[in-house]
C-alpha cells in the first residue's frame, strides 16, 4: 500500500503548507501526502497545531501559504468524501435522537429541507453503517442515554455512512476504556483496509494504535518529522524535535517517552 501509492492520486496532500496565528507560526513548509488506505498518526504536545491540521483538511481553517488537497481537489468545507470522528463527548440526555438518527445525520444532516425523498436509501445506508460497527442492537435507543463507548461507536458509523475516502479523527479514543479503545481503533483500521480510506488520526497517546500506524507526523513547536514509527519514535529524533533530552523506551510492545511532560490532551474546539 505504501509502495506504488505514487501512481495514484494521494488521498490527502499538503504542499508548502503554513498556518500562523498572528506572529506565532504553528507550522510551515509542511509537505505531506497520505495514500489511499494509509494510516497516519499525528502526534505532538498541546498547541502544536494537530487539531488545526484537521481544521485545514476540513476546510474550516485557511492556510497562510501553500495548498491542501483532498483526493486531488482543493479542500472545501463540508466535502462529502471526508468523514470526521471527534473525541467522545456526552450527548445531551434529552436529545430527540435515536442511535440510528444520529448516524443518519452523518448521511444528510447537513442538507436543508425535510428530506422526505430518498428515505429508503438513507435507511439502508444507515442500517449498513450501524451493522458495520456492531451498533444495530442499540440503533433504536435514545442516543443521549447510551454509554460513552456506545456513543463513540455511533460516531464512527456516522463518519462512515457518507462513504468517505478520507477519515479525519481527533482524539477519538480519549475518555474511552481500554476495551472500547480497542473496538473503535479496530473499526477504523477495518475501514481503511476494506475501503482504502486514508486515515489521519490525531492523538496524544500512540500506544493504542501503534500496530495500525503506517506513518507518524510528529509536530513540536513548529518543527516536525514524518516517517514510520521506527523512524520517528526514536530518542535522537524526539530529542531534536523537543530540543531537550528525550528517551524513547520500548517496553514489550509499548512505547514510553521519557523526558517530555505528560501531554494530557486538552481539546481545542473545532467550531
Amino acid at each position, binding site marked *: 500500500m505504501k509502495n506504488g501509492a505514487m501512481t495514484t492520486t494521494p488521498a490527502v496532500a499538503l504542499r508548502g503548507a503554513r498556518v500562523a496565528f498572528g506572529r506565532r507560526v504553528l507550522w510551515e513548509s509542511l509537505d505531506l501526502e497520505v495514500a489511499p488506505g494509509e494510516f497516519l498518526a499525528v502526534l505532538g504536545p498541546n498547541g502544536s497545531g494537530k487539531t488545526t491540521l484537521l481544521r485545514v483538511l*476540513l*476546510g*474550516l481553517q485557511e492556510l497562510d501559504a501553500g495548498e491542501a488537497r483532498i483526493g486531488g481537489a482543493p479542500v472545501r*468545507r*463540508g*466535502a462529502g468524501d*471526508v468523514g*470526521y470522528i*471527534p473525541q467522545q*463527548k456526552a*450527548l*445531551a*440526555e*434529552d*436529545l*430527540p*435522537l*435515536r442511535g440510528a*438518527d*444520529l448516524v443518519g*445525520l*452523518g448521511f*444528510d*444532516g*447537513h*442538507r*436543508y*429541507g*425535510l*428530506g422526505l425523498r430518498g428515505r429508503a436509501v438513507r435507511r439502508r445506508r444507515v442500517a449498513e453503517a450501524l451493522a458495520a460497527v456492531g451498533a444495530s442492537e442499540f440503533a433504536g*435507543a*435514545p*442516543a*443521549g*442515554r*447510551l*454509554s460513552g463507548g456506545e456513543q463513540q461507536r455511533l*460516531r464512527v458509523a*456516522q463518519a462512515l455512512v457518507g462513504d468517505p475516502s478520507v477519515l*479525519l479523527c481527533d482524539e477519538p479514543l480519549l475518555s474511552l476504556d481500554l476495551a472500547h479503545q480497542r473496538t473503535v481503533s479496530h473499526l477504523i483500521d477495518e475501514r481503511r483496509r476494506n475501503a482504502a480510506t486514508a486515515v489521519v488520526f490525531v492523538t496524544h497517546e500512540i500506544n493504542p494504535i501503534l500496530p495500525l500506524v503506517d506513518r507518524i507526523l510528529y509536530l513540536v513547536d513548529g518543527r516536525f518529522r514524518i516517517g514510520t514509527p521506527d523512524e520517528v519514535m526514536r530518542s535522537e529524533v524526539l530529542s531534536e524535535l523537543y530540543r531537550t533530552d528525550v528517551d524513547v523506551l520500548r517496553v514489550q510492545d509499548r512505547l514510553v517517552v521519557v523526558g517530555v511532560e505528560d501531554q494530557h490532551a486538552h481539546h481545542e*474546539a*473545532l*467550531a
Partner: protein
Amino acid sequence: MDRIFSFAGLGDLLSLSFVQNAFVAAALLGLVAGALAPLIVARGMGFAVHGTAELAFTGGAAALLAGISVSVGAVVGAVIAGLVFGVLGLRQRERDSVIGVVLAFGLGLGVLLLSLYSGRASNKFGLLTGSIVSVDSSNIWVLVSVTIVVLATLAVIYRPLLFASADPDVASARGVPARVLSPLFAVLVALTTALAVPIVGAILVLAVTIIPGAAAARVTASPMAATLLAIGIAEVSLLGGTLLSLAPGLPVSGYVATIAFVAYLVCRGIGRARGQLRTS
C-alpha cells in the same frame, strides 16, 4: 372549587367572536411552540426562553405606554433578546449570567413602564399572566403569518439545526453553519415567545415552550414522534386551558401550566416504567 371549575354559561361564551379568536390563537401557538419545544429542550435553552419572554414583556409594556400595538412591542423586544442570546449562545459558559443580567434589567424596566401606564389595569396584568381578551381579530392575522414564517423556516433548517444541536463539532466539520443557525433559531423562538406573551403571559411562556418538549423527551427519542407529541401536549394544554378558564373568568395561564405539568408527570411516569425494562 366552584370558582376554579365552572362551566356556567359556557355555551353562550363559546358563541362570542373574541372567544373563538382566543381558541384560534391558542391552536396556532400550540403548533409553533410544540414544534420548537424538543429543540429548545435539547439545546438547553430554557433560561434563554424565559429571558426572551421577559424582554417581550418589556417591549409590550413600552408599546402599551406609547399607545402602539402590544404585539409589535412584544415581537421587537423578544427578537432583540433572541438575537443577543443567540449570538452569545455559542459561548455556553457566560451565557447564563448574561441572560440573567439582561432579564433582570428588562423585567425591571417593564415594571417601571407599566406603572407609568394609566390605562386599563387588565392590560397591565395581561402581559404578565396572559389574557384571552388580548387577542382581537387583527392579532389573528399576525399570529397566522408568524406561525407560517416560523414553521416554514423550521422545515428548511430542521436537519442542520438538529445536527448542530446534537454535535456542534461534527456538524461544523460537515459544513453546517452553526454560527448562522444558532441566532436564526433564537429568532424563531423569540417570535414564538412574542406570540405567547399576550396569551399565557410573560411569566408562563415556559409552560408552552419547555414543558411539551421536556415531556416528549421522556417517552420518545424519535425526532418526528417527539415533535408530534410536543405539539399534541401544547395543543391540549392551550385549548384545554382556554376552555377551562372561560366560565370562571380567571387567567388562562394557570390552567395551561397545570395541564402541561400533568402531561409532563404522565410522560415521566411512562418513561420510568419503560426505563426499568432497559438496563442502561
